[in-house]
C-alpha cells in the first residue's frame, strides 16, 4: 500500500460500457484477468495511477440496469446494486433501519466523491481506512457475486481477505450487497479522523434481538489491515448497555483489538482511540 503516484497518466486500457449484466459477464469472460470492473472509479483509477493495477480492459458498469437497483427481497433483506452511488443510497430513507451504515456512508470523503463512489466500490477497494466494511460486517451483510457459471453469496467478513485483496475470481462481478432484514437492530458508527477522510480508528456496532437471543457485533476498522470484530467487547455488553458494561467493553476493546503502526497513526494512539470511540458509540446508543 502506498500513497500518491509518480505517474500523471493512466496505463493503456480499453474502455467498455456494457448495457446489461450478460454483456458485462461476457466481457469479463472474454478478458479474464486482464479486466477490472469499474463503478464510480474512485478506487480503481487511483490504483491504476499508482500502477497497483494495470488492467488492459476496464468494464464500466454504471449503465448496467441490474446493478442500478435497490430492491427489498422478502424474507432476505435489502439488496443494493453495485452501481448505486453512495449519494443515492443516502437519499430518501433507503437505509432506514441500518443506522450504522447510513452513519458510515454519510461521512465518506466529501459530497463530490459520495456522488461518484459506490458502496460496492468502497468495499472492493479493501483498503484499511475506509468506513463501510466495518458497518457491513456488523450488519451481517453479504456480497452478491455473479459469474458465467452462476451466482454466489459470501459474507462481507470473509470477502475481505487483506488489504486490496478480496474473494473475487477473474470472470466474476460483484452485483450487489445484501443487507439482512434489520428487525429492530440498533446500530451506530463512530470514527476518528485527524485531518483527512481516512479514519485512524472506526467502530461499527449492531445490537439485535433481546434477552438470551441478543446478538452483538462490534467491528473495528482502520486499526489494522482488515476490519476486526472484538468478541470480548461484544461479550461485555451482551447483557445490556449499562454504564459498567460500556466501560468494560471500552477497556476490553482497547486491550484486545489488534492495532498497527502505520503512516497515519501509531498502534498506541489507535488503542487509545479504540477506547474513546467505543465509549462514544455505546454511550450514544444508550441514550438512543
Amino acid at each position: 500500500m502506498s500513497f500518491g503516484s509518480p505517474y500523471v497518466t493512466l496505463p493503456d486500457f480499453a474502455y467498455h460500457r456494457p448495457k446489461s449484466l450478460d454483456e458485462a459477464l461476457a466481457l469479463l469472460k472474454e478478458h479474464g484477468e486482464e479486466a477490472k470492473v469499474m463503478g464510480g472509479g474512485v478506487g480503481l483509477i487511483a490504483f491504476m495511477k499508482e500502477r497497483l493495477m494495470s488492467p488492459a480492459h476496464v468494464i464500466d458498469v454504471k449503465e448496467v440496469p441490474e446493478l442500478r437497483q435497490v430492491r427489498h427481497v422478502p424474507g432476505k433483506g435489502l439488496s443494493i446494486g453495485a452501481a448505486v452511488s453512495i449519494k443515492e443510497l443516502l437519499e430518501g430513507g433507503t437505509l432506514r433501519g441500518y443506522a450504522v451504515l447510513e452513519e458510515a456512508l454519510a461521512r465518506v470523503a466529501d459530497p463530490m466523491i459520495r456522488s461518484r463512489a459506490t458502496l460496492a466500490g468502497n468495499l472492493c477497494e479493501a483498503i484499511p481506512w475506509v468506513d463501510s466494511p466495518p458497518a457491513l460486517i456488523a450488519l451481517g451483510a453479504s456480497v452478491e457475486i455473479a459469474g458465467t457459471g452462476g451466482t454466489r453469496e459470501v459474507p462481507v467478513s470473509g470477502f475481505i481477505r487483506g488489504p486490496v485483496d478480496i474473494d473475487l475470481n477473474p470472470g466474476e462481478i460483484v452485483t450487489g450487497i445484501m443487507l439482512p432484514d434489520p428487525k429492530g437492530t440498533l446500530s451506530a458508527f463512530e470514527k476518528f479522523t485527524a485531518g483527512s477522510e481516512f479514519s485512524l480508528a472506526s467502530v461499527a456496532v449492531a445490537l439485535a434481538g433481546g434477552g438470551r437471543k441478543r446478538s452483538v457485533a462490534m467491528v473495528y476498522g482502520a486499526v489494522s489491515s482488515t476490519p476486526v470484530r472484538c468478541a470480548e467487547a461484544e461479550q461485555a455488553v451482551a447483557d445490556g448497555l449499562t454504564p459498567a458494561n460500556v466501560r468494560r467493553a471500552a477497556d476490553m476493546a482497547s486491550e484486545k483489538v489488534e492495532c498497527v503502526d502505520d503512516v497515519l497513526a501509531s498502534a498506541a494512539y489507535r488503542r487509545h482511540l479504540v477506547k474513546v470511540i467505543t465509549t462514544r458509540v455505546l454511550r450514544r446508543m444508550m441514550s438512543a
Partner: protein
Amino acid sequence: MTADAFVGKAVPPEDTVRKVTGTALYTYDWEVPGTLYAKLVTSTVPHAKIVRISLESAKAVPGVVAVLTGKDMPFRVGMYAGDRDLLAVEKVRWAGHPVALVVAETLEAGERASELVDVEYETLPAVFDPVKAMEADAPLLHERMEEYKHAPVFYPVPGTNIANRFRLVHGDVEKGFGQADELVEEEFRISHVSHAYLETQNVVAQAYRDGTYEIWTSAQSPFVVRQIISESLNIPYNKITIRVPFVGGGFGGKAGLQWEALAAMASKAVGYRPVKLVLSRKENFSSGASREGVVANVKAGFTKDGKCVAYKVRFVLDAGAYADYTVNVSRAMGYSAEGVYEVPNVQCESLAVYTNKVPTTAMRGFGYSESNWVLEQVFERAAKKLGMDSAKIRRVNLLRPGESHTATGEKVREDVGDPRKVLQTVLEGIDWDGKVERPSEPWKVRARGFALCVKGPSQPPNASSSAILKFNEDSTIDLVLGTGNFGQGTATAISQMVADQFGVAVEKVRVDPVRDTGKSAYTWQTVGSRGLFTDGVATLRACEDAKGQILDLASQVMRLPKSELEVAEGAVKAKGRPWLSIPLRELVFGYVYPNGNTVGGPVIGRGQYTSSLNTYLDPQTGQGVPTIFHTFGGTAVDIELDLVTGAIEVKKAVQVFDVGKAINPLLLKMQLDGGFIMGMSIALFEKIKFDEQGWVMNPNFTSYYLARMKDVPKDFVARYVETPQFDGPLGARGIGELSMISVASAISNAVFRSTGVKLNNLPMSPEEVWAAISSQKPELLAKAMESYGRVETAVKARQ
C-alpha cells in the same frame, strides 16, 4: 478622481475574473508545437555511488527521444550554496534524487520508459538525523563542499555536513545567566512541511540553435532563475528569457531555481525541441524541495521582574540533501532569534546541516516562524514560572522604537512600528482580561493564548527593484512590474497607488499578468513580503518621473512655470486656477497644436529602489542591518482542546499587524485570514513523514494532512495598526509572510497556559497532543476519560 480615491480602499484583486472564469493561463497550459514530455527517473536509495545506468531498454520504448543522465549535464547550480546538480552526478543523495530524465513524444511513452531505466548503485552509509549528521564520523554528503560557489554571507564548514554556520553574539550570555532568577531550558522540534501549492512544479523550456533559451515556469522570481542559470551554466543573461504566467501558489517553494535549467539542457540535448516537465504531487513531495525540519535547544534567563537577561539558542536545520536556499533560512532563523524583544545578552548558533532527505528551500516565514516557535513559548513558560501575566512579561521586554537595539545591533527607528500598540490591540481583540468561555464538554478545555512576531525580508543588501510606467494613447497606463503575482494582490495595491498619483480610476492602470525577464521591470525576487515595499517605492518614483515629463510639457504648452502646475484628476492643472487645465490624454502622447505641430511624445516613467541602509552581518557576531523593514504583529487564539483525543479546535483567531499604511484593507484582510489558516494548518496538521530510508511516506493530501474548511475558525478578527514608515510606499510595510508566523506559538501557548502541558513539537497533531498529555499530565487524561465515560442513564436497547 481625488488624490485618495483608491489608496486605503477595498479594491478587489485585478485577476479575479480570469481566475474564477478559468481563463487564467498557467505554465501547464503552455503547449508549444512539437513539445516533448520529460519524466524523472529517481533514486530508490538514500545515499549511493552510481556504478552504472542502463538506458537501452528505456531508449527502445517507441516514442522515446532521449534518456539523459548527470553525465550529459554535469553542472553544479545554485544561488546561495551552489550545491545542486541537475541530475545526479556520480552519486545520489536521497531516495527520490533524480538520476535520469526520459524525454519522449508523449508523456505515456516517457512514463513507461522511466520504469525501464536500470541503475546499479553501490550503497553508502546514510544519515537522516541532522544532529547525528554533525558528528565527526557521520557520512559526508558533499565531499567537495569547498569547491561550491557560496554567496559571501554564508559560512560552510567543508569536511562536515554543515552547509552554513551562522553565529550571533550580543552582550555576554553567561554573565546574563548569572543575573537570572529563573531559567527556561527546552528542546523544540519542527517537522518538515510541504508548501502544498495547488500547482505542482512545472516548466516548459526551449533551447534555440542561436544560443538563446526561452523558459516558461511556475516560479516566484524569474530574474533569479535567469541569474542562477546564467551564472551556473555560463550563458549571458540576455540569451535567457524566463516567462512566468499565472502561478498556482508559491509560498517560498518556487523562490529559487526549480527544474528550469534541467529542462533547458534537455531541450538542447534533444535537438532544440521544447521540453515540458510536470511533477506529480508525489514527485513534488519526494523529489522537489520542502521546508526544513528543525531541532532547537534553548536556555533563557529571566529576572524576578520578568526581564529576559540572557537568551542562548542553537538551531539545527535538517536541510536535506541540498541546502542552496536553506543556508539563508538558517541565517534568518539565527538573527531573528530574539524576535520583538530587547535582550541584552544573546548567543545564537544556527546550522544548516545536510542529511539524506529531500532538499529544502525557502518557505513563507523563512526561519522567523521557526525561531518564533521557540522564543514565544519560552516567554510563556517564563511567565508561568514567574507567576506573571503573559502580557506583562512581554511589555517588560518589548523593543522600544527610538531606544532599543535588535539582536543584530540595529537601532530600532521611531517609524518602524509600534509593538506596544500591536500587543494592546491583540489583547483587546481576544478580550484578554475577560472571562474564558466554558468548554462545550466537561472533558474539553477552553483556553486563550497569544504570541507576537516581527519579520522583514531576508535579502542581500544590494537587492533592487524597478518599475516602468507607460502611458497609452488614451492616457490609460501600462505599469510594468517585475514583482510576481501568485495570489498576494501586490499588483492591485500598487495600481491603486498609481491611480491616485494621477487622479485616474484604478481600472485605467493595467499590469500584465505575465512576468518576462526580457520585458518586465527588474526586481530581485518576489519573496520576504518585499513586493509592495520595494516595487511600490520604485513605482512611486516612476510616477514622479512620468509626472515630471508631463509637467515639463504642460509648462511649455500652458506657458506657466512648472512649479505652478500639478497633476490631479487625470489632468494637469494650474495650482489655484483649476479652470486652467489640460487632460492627460492630450499630453501623454505629445501635445498637438491646432495646426498639427506636435511637441513631446509617449511618456514613459521609470523608477528604482535599492535600500542604502542594509549591510552584511559580521561573520563572528552577526551584527549589522539585515532587513529593510520590520513588520510587527501578533496572533491570539481562543481554542478548545479535547483532552480525550488530543484534537485542538480554534474557535476564534485575532490577527493584528502594524502595516504602516493599509493600501488595500480587503487584500490585507485576505492575507491575515489566509496566513492564519496556513499557520494553523502547519501548527495542527502538517508533517512530512519519512521512513527509515528517508523516503517520503505521505506524498499526497489524504495522508499529508492540511487544514480543511471545517477547521477554519468561525470567528476571525483582523485588525491593523498604521505607524507609517518614512521610506515605505505611502508609509506601508510588507505583510504577506507575517500573517502565519505567530499562529503556532499562540495555539501552543493557549494549551500551556490552561493545562501546563508543553507542546514542544510541531505539528500539534491529535496524536502528538495526546502523547504529551499522557506523559506530562496523566492525571488530566484520566480525569477526562472518567468524565467521558460517565453515563448517568442506562437505556435498554430497542427490542
